[in-house]
């Protein structure tokens, strides 16, 4: 009898002891508030309050970490993706209780921060896009990731196949794309092609609207998009495999539709070494888009992305080698020329980008650290044109001028940032250097040799926490640039907590966009064109002002309603555009001429309640443009946008459902319009409104396998009309391609158990 009772008692003691005795006596344990289960693999930082000792690492599968070599009391910070961050002082080994958080809030952000910060604490208004939503939507490229953001407009260009984005009415030349804080070089035309950036296995995307020019320099006038890659872990091997099959409208087959396969693999070696390899292959079959013949509206293309990280990360420091590799081949078939032996001028565009990077950080003490990165990018875009004889099959290279072209860009960057907080939390500051050189040739850049530029800057920011409610940050950047007079850039951010639930933020920043090598050294002279670059171009400048409120309401059983209201104003001058050369009016060149202003607001609500996560928002952007003396928008023209998203997890069969919807209102545009005689004119018109909707269902099988089925572009948008305002003698504007029509996708994602 006794033996029977003894077993459960002994067993219970054993369990208890695991929590209370072995766990607590020489370490710290974190458990979940609701289900009392250990919070495994949470990120933890321990600092001795009365010493220099520090430990950063991860809780093990029991939620435990050893503190046997440390002296209490300890400052403890625990961060885990599903839980609210824990920050506090612990005077002896203890069990810490972590609250489950709702997915939408309490993300940790890094862009523009001194160190990873919970979103709520950030002085700068950062928005995040989480990978789970991207996975569920079947989003694989950066352009798809951003399409639902309010006041963001995608700008697809059929001529090059590139996709740009405009933010708050400022175009894609003024948006800076970063990979883990390092800018990407190599533009197609004047902006980075977002469809070339793969985000399948991304950790998170962070967006800051408004210039972060103090930290990031040129091109960040409209904002910064920071792609945070999957953090590599020092542990047993982990992997993710991602297969995406998608139709393009109703086209799907071996040579049609979208076929994407990706794999990510990583592991730790020894205590401090780690490696991670990611590889994705994507094939896009092209989209006919109503174009007759062999030519297509969007050409087929094939992309390969690779990312390798090898690093050494003991306590207090890290050094990592990183390689990003991108290869894209666009196959552009042309319609034939001639009646008897038709010749088609087919083209291929081969783009390659290699980014070699060495980065790291060093904690000099508990209050000082240095982050640094050195990066070398080699980018090339080769255009090849063939005279494809459709009768004989021969394809010689075309020898006319401009038929074959290679554009090369090489860019080198070094950033070093020293961060210190001498008065813990009250005063901290950063000093940084940002050294950039870039050289380019080909692609209609003057001369057979390289043209180059250099941008060498130093910046400093200071953050003051004047009280528990009030903090502010000031920044200043000074640059020396080889081609133009660089501006001194100030910025100021203020955050005031009106109540524990209500934050007010105000920001002012000056931004600029440096003239590109193409704008400086363009060269296009033939019998009808005399267009040259302008070496005395000055940068475009902007003032940006925004302010807003963020309110977080918790009610009921862990329900959270978050409201974000933000107003913005951008004032740009010196915009670079085409104009007459001041010294020779027969030559057309780039000049600093335009004035462009935007203002508007956005209101975003997110609600987590029971099994639902709901988001909704409305945004309005007003545009004011003094294009030239003959074409002016003398008043602001407003465009509204509405978006909503719903995620529903019923809790059985591992199912969840998501819906995304966005309404984009009219956008004013300059259009080329033709009358009956074929005469052309540039007039003010507008792009019609349209709606976009994605719907998907996700099923999680056990923990390894996720299957997602979805419909994209449920409203079947293909082209959007551009109309001329006010009618007049000219006919309608034409069509602007937005999408491929309703498409379907299937996505299969395998993850190892320890992948998070």
């Amino acid at each position, binding site marked *: 009898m006794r033996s029977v009772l003894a077993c459960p008692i002994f067993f219970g003691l054993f369990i208890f002891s695991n929590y209370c005795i072995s766990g607590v006596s020489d370490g710290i344990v974190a458990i979940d508030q609701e289900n009392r289960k250990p919070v495994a693999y949470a990120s933890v930082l321990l600092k001795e309050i009365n010493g220099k000792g520090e430990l950063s690492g991860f809780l093990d599968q029991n939620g435990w970490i050893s503190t046997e070599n440390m002296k209490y009391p300890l400052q403890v910070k625990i961060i885990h993706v599903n839980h609210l961050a824990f920050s506090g002082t612990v005077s002896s080994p203890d069990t810490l209780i972590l609250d489950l958080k709702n997915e939408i809030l309490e993300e940790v952000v890094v862009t523009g921060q001194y160190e990873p910060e919970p979103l709520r604490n950030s002085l700068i208004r950062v928005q995040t896009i989480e990978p789970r939503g991207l996975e569920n939507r079947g989003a694989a490229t950066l352009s798809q990731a951003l399409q639902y953001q309010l006041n963001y407009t995608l700008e697809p260009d059929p001529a090059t196949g590139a996709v740009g984005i405009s933010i708050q009415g400022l175009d894609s030349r003024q948006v800076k794309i970063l990979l883990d804080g390092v800018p990407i070089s190599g533009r197609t035309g004047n902006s980075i092609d977002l469809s070339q950036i793969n985000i399948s296995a991304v950790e998170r995307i962070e967006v800051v609207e408004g210039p972060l020019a103090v930290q990031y320099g040129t091109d960040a006038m409209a904002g910064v998009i920071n792609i945070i890659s999957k953090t590599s872990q020092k542990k047993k091997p982990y992997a993710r495999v991602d297969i995406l099959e998608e139709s393009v409208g109703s086209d799907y087959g071996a040579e049609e539709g979208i076929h994407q396969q990706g794999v990510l693999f990583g592991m730790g070696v020894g205590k401090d070494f780690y490696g991670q390899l990611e590889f994705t292959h994507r094939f896009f079959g092209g989209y006919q888009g109503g174009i007759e013949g062999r030519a297509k509206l969007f050409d087929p293309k094939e992309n390969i992305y690779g990312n390798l990280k090898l690093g050494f990360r003991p306590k207090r420091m890290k050094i990592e080698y990183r390689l990003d590799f991108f290869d894209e081949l666009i196959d552009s078939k042309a319609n034939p020329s001639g009646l008897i032996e038709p010749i088609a001028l087919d083209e291929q565009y081969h783009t390659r980008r290699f980014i070699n990077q060495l980065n790291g950080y060093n904690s000099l003490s508990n209050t000082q650290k240095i982050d640094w990165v050195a990066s070398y990018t080699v980018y090339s875009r080769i255009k090849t044109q063939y005279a494809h004889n459709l009768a004989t099959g021969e394809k010689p290279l075309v020898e006319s001028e401009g038929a074959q072209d290679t554009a090369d860009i090489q860019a080198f960057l070094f950033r070093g940032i020293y961060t210190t907080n001498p008065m813990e939390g009250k005063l901290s500051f950063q000093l940084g250097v940002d050294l950039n050189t870039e050289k380019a040739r080909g692609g209609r850049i003057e001369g057979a040799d390289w043209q180059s530029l250099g941008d060498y800057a130093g910046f400093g920011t200071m953050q003051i926490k004047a009280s528990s409610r009030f903090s502010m940050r000031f920044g200043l950047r000074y640059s020396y640039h080889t081609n133009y007079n660089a501006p001194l850039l100030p910025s100021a951010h203020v955050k005031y907590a009106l109540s524990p639930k209500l934050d007010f933020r105000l920001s002012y920043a000056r931004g600029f966009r440096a003239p590109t090598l193409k704008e400086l050294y363009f060269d296009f002279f033939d019998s009808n064109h005399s267009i040259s670059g302008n070496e005395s171009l000055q940068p475009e400048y902007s003032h940006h002002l925004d302010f807003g409120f963020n309110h977080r309401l918790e009610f009921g059983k862990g329900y959270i309603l978050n409201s974000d209201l933000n107003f913005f104003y951008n004032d740009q001058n010196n915009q670079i555009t085409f104009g007459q050369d001041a010294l020779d009016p027969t*030559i057309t060149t780039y000049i600093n001429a335009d004035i462009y202003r935007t203002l508007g607001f956005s209101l975003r609500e997110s609600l987590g309640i029971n099994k639902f996560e709901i988001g909704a928002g409305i945004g309005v952007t007003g545009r004011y443009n003094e294009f030239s003396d003959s074409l002016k928008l003398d008043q602001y023209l407003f465009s509204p946008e509405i978006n909503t998203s719903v995620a529903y997890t019923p809790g059985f069969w591992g199912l969840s459902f998501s819906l995304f919807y966005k309404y984009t209102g009219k956008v004013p545009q300059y259009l080329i319009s033709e009358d009956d005689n074929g*005469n052309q004119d540039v007039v003010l018109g507008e792009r019609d409104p349209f709606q976009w909707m994605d719907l998907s269902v996700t099923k999680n099988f056990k923990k390894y396998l996720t299957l997602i089925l979805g419909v994209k572009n449920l409203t079947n948008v293909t082209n959007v009309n551009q109309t001329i305002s006010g009618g007049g003698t000219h006919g309608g504007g034409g069509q602007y391609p937005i999408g491929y029509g309703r498409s379907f996708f299937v996505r299969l994602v395998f993850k190892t158990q320890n992948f998070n």
Partner: protein
Amino acid sequence: MKTLVFPNILLMVCSLTFVSCIGDDEGGFQTVPAFKGGLLDANVGGEKQPNQVYIDLSTNTSTAILRSTWDLGFYSGQEFRVIINSSVAMMAYRLDKNEIDKVGHADTLGLGDQLSLEAVFGALFGPPVPWLSEASTWIDNPSRDLDLTAIDEVMEQDSDNMVYIINRGNDEENNSRGWKKIQIKRNGNGYDLLYGDIGDTQHSTLTIQKDPDYNFSFFHFSNGLVDVEPKAAEWDLAFTTWTELTELNGDDIPYFFKDYVIINQKGVSVAKVPVNDETKTLEEFNEFSGEDVADLNFSDSVNFIGDSWRTIATPTPGSVTSVRNDRFFVLRDSQNNTYKLIFTAMLSDQGERGFPQILFDLL
């Protein structure tokens, strides 16, 4: 006896006819039958299109000359009109002076920023300029209508003829050919051309007679009178470059066109035939016969064909530099031969522009 006479008469008759058959081929009027048709590749010269090519369908000959061979053409017909060389984008600006030696550099002040294709194009990107609407008067009207030339009719009264500043345009390598000043007067049934460099105080003079065999007498500032067009009766159409007018922002402005086709001023007319099924253009062309000609409207306008025979690729996906497959043409030459002709290529088989080809057939 009967039997002997008959064969002799027969022999006599035969020998007479036999003699008359031979006699027809010797001396007297001989008309070579018109060429029946075929493919013709015009030697325009590739990418830069350096040549004008004058084609005579009935003899299947083409004559290629460099575009910069001439500057001015003096009309041989009744009127006294002078044309400038459209194919090198020449421009002529009329001054209010009628004494050529008193014209100097001061009279061209500001013209450097106006009197050229580059200046006109450049002006589109700056603030609106008042002179842009006048630019169409500095070139010959693209139709080569002699009432609409850049240089006014040469008047009887010498003092009614003004001095013109000439921008000689660009040569085949797109280099500027320089500037001159001219003044033209009548001399009996011919012309007196007074010319010189802008700063000259002593002009040169050349008397030019009208030659009825040719449409124009052509003149080059360095080489004097030169051969350009074949005799008026000996060519039908030509490939050339041309200074056209295009409407931009409400004004007609000069714009340079390549791959342009003109027809002979005199005696040639042409009509357009629309194609019903663009996938069967060559078949419809082959089936088109002389009977269908009666329904057509013929025009003798010099630039009736112009650029309407081809399209040029734009950045819009699907657009292509090619011959148009929705039309072909019927041409009636000065000997009343009627040909159907269709443009079959614009590019060489190496994909280079400036290698046009036509297929033509005698109806």
